[in-house]
């Protein structure tokens, strides 16, 4: 029978594998013109590092013990960045506004309360970002102003305005399924790193008795 530290290492390696799958899937964008492979930019990278810090600080991810734990955190950070690349609006005014709001508002919300609430807040944030990127922007994109090359030049002006607002690229429905799979894998990886079941220690000061925490200990 394996000793607890080894079990923790197994979970860490499993989480790293799952985070890798999440990162790979989140970067694949299926468009009508072909497949694009995205890598995160500086905005997503910095945001991912901050998110990793909060997840470790709040004990959503177990405190790393030894290199397998740090390996899982490294792959988790990469998955964070790719998932943010998937969810954040495309470059433009909309993205700037969203990032400003997140930078000034969300960190306050994410660094208080029990860790179960942090996970729920992250899920709500992901939902809102997905709504903005995959519903609001495409709908407005199709309806704001005439199409390029039409209306005696007005269409080109409208296209420029649209590009300034958000450099949107249409995606296929199957591409959005890949995004869902990436998010599901991220959640599974986080579940594996969830502390409190004996194999992974909780971070100091994060022990609590919430419903999700009791469930986590059963796995």
């Amino acid at each position: 029978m394996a000793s607890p530290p080894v079990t923790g290492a197994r979970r860490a390696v499993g989480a790293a594998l799952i985070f890798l799958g999440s990162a790979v899937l989140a970067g694949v964008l299926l468009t009508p013109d072909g497949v694009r492979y995205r890598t995160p930019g500086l905005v997503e990278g910095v945001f991912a590092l901050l998110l990793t810090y909060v997840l470790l600080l709040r004990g959503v991810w177990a405190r790393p013990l030894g290199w397998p734990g740090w390996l899982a955190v490294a792959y988790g950070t990469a998955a964070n960045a790719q998932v943010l690349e998937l969810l954040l609006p495309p470059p433009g005014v909309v993205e700037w506004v969203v990032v400003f709001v997140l930078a000034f508002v969300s960190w306050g919300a994410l660094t208080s309360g029990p860790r179960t609430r942090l996970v729920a807040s992250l899920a709500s944030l992901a939902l809102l970002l997905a709504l903005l990127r995959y519903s609001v922007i495409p709908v407005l994109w199709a309806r704001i102003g005439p199409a390029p090359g039409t209306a005696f030049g007005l269409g080109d002006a409208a296209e420029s305005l649209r590009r300034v607002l958000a450099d949107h690229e249409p995606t296929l429905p199957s591409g959005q399924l890949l995004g869902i799979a990436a998010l599901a894998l991220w959640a599974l990886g986080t579940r594996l790193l969830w502390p409190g079941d004996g194999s992974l220690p909780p971070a100091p000061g994060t022990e609590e008795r919430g419903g999700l925490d009791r469930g986590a200990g059963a796995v």
Partner: protein
Amino acid sequence: MNERAVLRDPWVGGGLALLALLTFGAAMLYRGAPQSFAEVRSDARVAVRPAAFEQRMARAEERKQAASDIASAGDTVEALRVYAAAGEEAWSARGLARDPAEAAAGTELWAEIVLDRSALMLAAASSPWWRRDDDPALRDALARVEDVLVHPTSPATRGRAETLAAEIRNKLRPGPLEWLPLR
């Protein structure tokens, strides 16, 4: 944590090996940016057996088909790029042939790809009579077709190459002369 005990655990060791392999695969996937599962498959086959004639031929066929599809979709620049990659694969296959029959098959596929690419270049470089043709592109296409003509190919391929070369030479004639017969 005891580092040696961790590494001795077969699940951890196996998982780490799998992680390294999959990380390498992911890096290759993003670097190659394949556009279809067929391309991923042919890439993987060539990566596993880079010196195998059959794998290179299959890869060249797949790239040729992909280029044809891209050209049909209207993206000439990308189609030319993919045709070039297909030609290189077919030429590599020809170099890996183990007997004259395989060499002939490799040459034949390479010639077909070069002729397809040259035909696309001819179409892209040709303009209506009141505008200039893209003569450097036409000369490039002609050089490629002439390269095919110096290699041994089937009579059908050779005939196609001669027809295409005559068409390009005709296009290269100045102004309205291209409407007059060459002979």
